[in-house]
Structures are given as structure tokens and as C-alpha cells.
């Protein structure tokens, strides 16, 4: 797969290629950006280009031949010079030799999925942390010479999930790497990384993918029609993973559910019983992608309302078909502290990832939003 297969990241791809060609590739890279923008896909391309036996090289670009032995191994992510490190569930062994068969199978499956879909989110069910034992295993492996010719690339997936012990154990390796090794840390929450880790890496921020690029990607892959793609991409936050997850969902139906939920939370006194009923209906079946979509839709709604409150009726918004309803909402609650509400929604997404009971997550969030919005109404200047 060429670099261009990583959509919407041409600048980063060009930067990395130039670094490879001029032999100035940093030993540690931190690729940050929201989930599903192609951070680890870029890392795989980097490994592919630096390990290819007959790459096509020009002054500013390097493209793997996609035919040599190394490229064959890279295609199935079975190259000994490429290694992924990701969070593991609690109570499992850290080193591969000690892992149980079912965990290894999960890891194999994650790699197989990643090899067919570069945007596949590598995550093992119930995984929470990257532990010190895993980092020690990486260090041990790096202390040995390379198995095959080329550059060894270690990808730490969602590096902010490293425990502080793991992070600290990694510092020396990041600072004094072996020659011909590049460590790529990917993170959708780089602010959670230790400063000492961040300062040892060259940081590259991967921007969200433009909606129209995302639409053509989804259509080209034959995943949906243009109309369907146009419907989901505004809510995908520039993330391929989210867009793919949302494809199977009824976005408009879910949006009206979210708006109803918000309305219920903002009703007068007797809102509690109804709110709980609505939340139960949303969280029924514990469909995680759907619940995440709901939270995403809620965030977009709040953001749009703020946009109208600030820039007026014609503000560019994502829920363009709901401009009237949003304007009414903005009139009442336009002065709310949107940043804190969005932070609460982020926290709720994190809580869902950590398997907190969904009903509690939603209930806490809605009560918190209710407080923020009512507070804003009380404080709103009477113009």
C-alpha cells in the first residue's frame, strides 16, 4: 500500500518521506491526533518504506516496491522489524512467551484486521494499560541485533495508556536508542503522556480528515453510497474509524433520540423518571459504537448551538438541517460554558471505554449538562 493510502495526511507523509530520504528520521516520533485519522497507518507506511529492499526513491519521496520479500511480510504485518505494543487486559502476562493462547489469538486477530484495514483500531477487549513488563520486553528485544536488514520500527499504540512505571522505564530507551531503530508513539490523548516522554520525541500532529476526503474514501471502499457517507461524515470528527462505525447506525434517528434526551434533561421538576427511562432505552443492549455515536452527536449539537449563539443564524454548522431548532436552543442556552460540557462528554466517552456502567455514565453526564445549561440561563445577560 502506498503512502497515499493514508488519506488526509499528505503533509505528515511528505515530512516523513523527506526525513527518510535525507537519512534524518528521528529515533522517536509522537504522532498525535484523534482516533482513526491514520496515525498507526502512517507508522506502518514508515516501516514499509524503510525496510523495502528496492524502494522507489526520489529527492523528496520514498515509496516501497510492494513486491520484495520485506514488502510481502509487511503486507501481513508479519515483518520481524515491525512490532506493535498495545494495552493488555489486567491479569495477563506481559511477555509473549508467557501469554495464554486466547490472548495471543486476540493479538493475532488484531494484527490480521490491521493488515486488511489500516484504520482498524487495535484494541483488545478489556485492555486498559500498557505495562512495565511489555516495555521491558521491547527493551530486551531492542538490545539484540536486528533479525532482518532494514530499520526496526516499534509502534506504541495509544502510548498514553502506558502506566507511569512503564513510561519511566521507557525514558532511557527513548533517549539513547539503538541505531536503526525508530520508536513511534501514537496517541489520541497526548496530554496524558508524561512530559518527560513527550520531550524525548519529535511531535507530529495528525489533523482530522476533511469531510469530503472521508466521503470519497468511504465511497471508494464500497462501504456506502455518497449520500450515506455525506450523512455520517459530519459526525465522525474527521476519523475514518468513527465514520465506519457510524455507517451501520441510523444517524438521524439517533440524533433525534439525543435531542429528546437533552430536552428531557432540561425539563422542569419531574424530569428524573423520564430521563432515566430515556437513558435506559439508549443504553439497552450496551451497543458501544451506538452509545459513542450518541455522545458524539450530543457534542456536535452543543457545538453547533454555540456557533449560532456566537456567529448568528447563518453560522457554519454541522446539523444544517436543524438550524431552526438549534437557533431556539441557542437563544436559551447560548451562554453556556461549552468547553466544560464538551470536556464532560469526553470524560463520558473515556468512562464507556473503561467499561463503566453506561446508565451511570449517561445519567451523570446529563445531570452535569443540565446544571451547566441552567446556570448559563440564570447568568445570561438580559439584552
Amino acid at each position, binding site marked *: 500500500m502506498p503512502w497515499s493510502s493514508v488519506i488526509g495526511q499528505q503533509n505528515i507523509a511528505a515530512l516523513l518521506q523527506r526525513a527518510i530520504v535525507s537519512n534524518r528520521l528521528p529515533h522517536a516520533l509522537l504522532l498525535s491526533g484523534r482516533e482513526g485519522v491514520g496515525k498507526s497507518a502512517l507508522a506502518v507506511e514508515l516501516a514499509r518504506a524503510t525496510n523495502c529492499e528496492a524502494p522507489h526513491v526520489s529527492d523528496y519521496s520514498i515509496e516501497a516496491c510492494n513486491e520484495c*520479500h520485506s514488502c*510481502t*511480510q509487511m503486507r*501481513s504485518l*508479519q*515483518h*520481524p522489524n515491525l512490532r506493535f505494543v498495545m494495552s493488555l487486559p489486567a491479569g495477563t502476562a506481559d511477555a*509473549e*512467551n508467557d*501469554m495464554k*493462547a486466547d490472548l*495471543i*489469538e486476540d*493479538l*493475532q486477530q488484531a*494484527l490480521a484486521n490491521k493488515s486488511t484495514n489500516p484504520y482498524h483500531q487495535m484494541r483488545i477487549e478489556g485492555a486498559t494499560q500498557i505495562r512495565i513488563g511489555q516495555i*521491558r520486553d521491547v*527493551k*530486551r*528485544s531492542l*538490545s*539484540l*541485533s*536486528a*533479525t*532482518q*536488514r532494514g530499520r526496526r520500527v516499534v509502534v506504541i499504540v495509544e502510548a498514553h495508556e502506558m502506566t507511569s512505571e512503564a513510561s519511566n522505564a521507557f525514558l532511557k530507551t527513548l533517549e539513547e536508542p*539503538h541505531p536503526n531503530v525508530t520508536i513511534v508513539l501514537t496517541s489520541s490523548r497526548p496530554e496524558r503522556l508524561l512530559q518527560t516522554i513527550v520531550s524525548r520525541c519529535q511531535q507530529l500532529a495528525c489533523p482530522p480528515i476533511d469531510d469530503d476526503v472521508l466521503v470519497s474514501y468511504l465511497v471508494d471502499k464500497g462501504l456506502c453510497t455518497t449520500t450515506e457517507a455525506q450523512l455520517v461524515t459530519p459526525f465522525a470528527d474527521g476519523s475514518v474509524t468513527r465514520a465506519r462505525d457510524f455507517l451501520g447506525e441510523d444517524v438521524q434517528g439517533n440524533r433525534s433520540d439525543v435531542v429528546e434526551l437533552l430536552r428531557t434533561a432540561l425539563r422542569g421538576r419531574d424530569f428524573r423518571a423520564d430521563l432515566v427511562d430515556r437513558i435506559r432505552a439508549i443504553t439497552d443492549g450496551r451497543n458501544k459504537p451506538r452509545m459513542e455515536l450518541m455522545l458524539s452527536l450530543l457534542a456536535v449539537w452543543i457545538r453547533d448551538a454555540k456557533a449560532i449563539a456566537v456567529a448568528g443564524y447563518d453560522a457554519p454548522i454541522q446539523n444544517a438541517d436543524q438550524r431552526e431548532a438549534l437557533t431556539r436552543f441557542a437563544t436559551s442556552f447560548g451562554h453556556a460554558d461549552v468547553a466544560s460540557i464538551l470536556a464532560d462528554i469526553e470524560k463520558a466517552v473515556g468512562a464507556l471505554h473503561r467499561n463503566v456502567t453506561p446508565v451511570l455514565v449517561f445519567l451523570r453526564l446529563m445531570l452535569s449538562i443540565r446544571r451547566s445549561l441552567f446556570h448559563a440561563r440564570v447568568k445570561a445577560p438580559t439584552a
Partner: protein
Amino acid sequence: MKFTVALPDLQKALQKVLPAVPTKSTMAVLEHFLVTLKGSELTFTASDPELSIALTILVAGEVDGALLIPARQFNDLVKELGSAGTVEITADEMTNLVDVRTPTGSYEMKGLSANEYPSIPAFGESTQATIKRDDLARMANKTVFAVSTEEYRPSMTGVFFQFNGGTATAVATDGFRMSRVIVQAGANPFPTNLECIIPARAVELLRKVDTDAVMDVSTTHARFTVGMQTITTRLVDEKYPPYQNVIPADNDKTLIVNQREVLAAIKRVSLFANANTKHVRFSIDERVLSVHSEDEDSGGKGTETIPCEFSHNGFVVGFNYRFLEEAIKNITADDDPDLSVRVTFSTPVRAVLITPASDAESLLMLVMPVKI
């Protein structure tokens, strides 16, 4: 690929390469044997992330080729086929299907393309050393126990091989004890200034070599060719600590003691040592060595007194019994009941050297004493 092979040959070959197959690996290709047929030479290769073992046997080959065959499944099948007769194996490189036929049965397995298997870089600019079977086994056996398992000192996780024309030295240390073996070159001198650190796993495999070995060392790998078998390992890519600096030259107190007696004494006394500290105390007089341990937690203690020859009088030194026992035990592999070991000291806190009483050069163990 198509060939017919005698079952006993096949079983023997698989047993030799199987130790390199990881039980489970995130790299699915490593759960396979790479099987390559060229004429009548059939080569099985098994690899884990650290080393790979290849073995060539002679078969009745019909069509050349290469394929990855699921290692455990194939080995389990071959084990069940008994030890007499032949099997015919056909592998289709297009469909990756492996067909195993015996006089009574036929089995089909799904393999993988050989292209996905890790390749070891060619040994173009390697340096070569021929090591006699006994010497190599001795270098491996006498050092590997002292290798460090701590990841924070990666250079010590392997055995350091150093060749210098007339001699070859193998050294292992974990910071608490060290073992050094020196062997002399045979008819062909060893290369000069060749150094490398071989990971402990590969050294473990070298303990059981059954013929002389040729060792090739490139910048990234070392390969041991033992008959038809080759063991190729990645090297520890670190600088080995200057081990010579820790070998004291001024140990003036010499203890000569029977190996069997002192080992038995340490073993018995250590039963009463503190399980955490593992301390035992040597009190040495001119003719008597007293080994003592005491555990204040449980209130137990033990003492053994054995005859010895000591150049001084009234010297007391403490040890971690595990390190001491392993060092003395590894002084020789022969079961010689009258073997004496020489232990030299300077002060109770300086390094202690243990060698065979008759030969202080070829084999040397160093143990750091503990303060008691």
C-alpha cells in the same frame, strides 16, 4: 514441492528444530516450519524472535519448492505415525496446501507462503572459528548459569565470546558472580580480535552439541554449524563490561577443599539459612573449614565442619549460598569424588576466586562475598 522421507529421519529432524518454535506467537508465521527442498536435501527451519534452527536431511526428492507448514500440527502427526516406514509429502505452493500420505492414511494441512518467513541476512563478511565439540560444550555449560536475567543490563543477558588467535574465552556474569572459561585452539588457530555476546537461549542449545562446530559471526548474527544442523542467533548489540577489571590479582589467602565435601556441607547448612538473604558463613582455620548458617526469623541454625588446607588462620567470610554452590558445582562436569577446588580470598568484602586446584587458568569462577 514433493518428496518421500523415512519416518525415523523425519522425527529426529523435527525434534532438533522444534525447540525454536514458539508455542504461540503474535507472528503467526513463526508457528510454522519453513520446509525447503533442493534436489534430495530437505531443510527444516524453525525460528522464534531470537534464534532459528535449521536442519538438513536427505530424502527422495521429486519436485523442489518451499512452504511453511504448521509446526505443532505437523510434529504431532509425525509422532503418531510410528517410527517405521516412509511418508510422501506434497506441498502446493499455489494453494499452500500440504498433503501427507502414508500407506494407510492421508492428511491435509493449510500452510503459508514461504515468502512471509523471516530471512536471515547473508553472512557475507563473517569471521569464522572452528570449535571442538568438548570445548564448545564446556564453554556453554560452565557459563550459562551465571548469565543475568535482569533486563536493565542487557549486555549481561548473554555469554561473551572472545577469540584471540591461540585461545577462546567465554564469560558470563550477572554482577554478583562471574564465570570464565578459556579453551585452546586446535590445529587451526582462532580468529583474532573477534568478540560477540551470544544470548543465553542460544548458549543453552550449544550445551548438547554432538560434533565439532563452526561458528560464523557477522555484524548482526552468529551461526553455529554443527553437522547438518545450524543454529543462528541474533547478537546482544551491547558492549560487554570490562570483566577483567573485576578479577583480583592479589588474593593472598588460599583454601584447598574437596569439592564433594564442601558442596554437601553447603547444601545441608543452607537448609537453615534465611530464605531471603540466603547467607552462609565460612570460618576457615588452617585445617578446618566451618560452614555455618543461622535464621533469626525461624530460630534455626546449622554448622558443618570439614577438613581443608588454608594458608592463613581465623578468616571469616559470608556468601549467598546459591551463588557459591553453583560456582563450586560447575568447577567440573566429571564426577570425580576426589576433585579439589582452590578458593582464594583477600579480605572478607573483596571478590573470591574459585578454580580447580590443579589448573587455575582454564576455568575460573568469581563470587562476590556478602557482609554478615
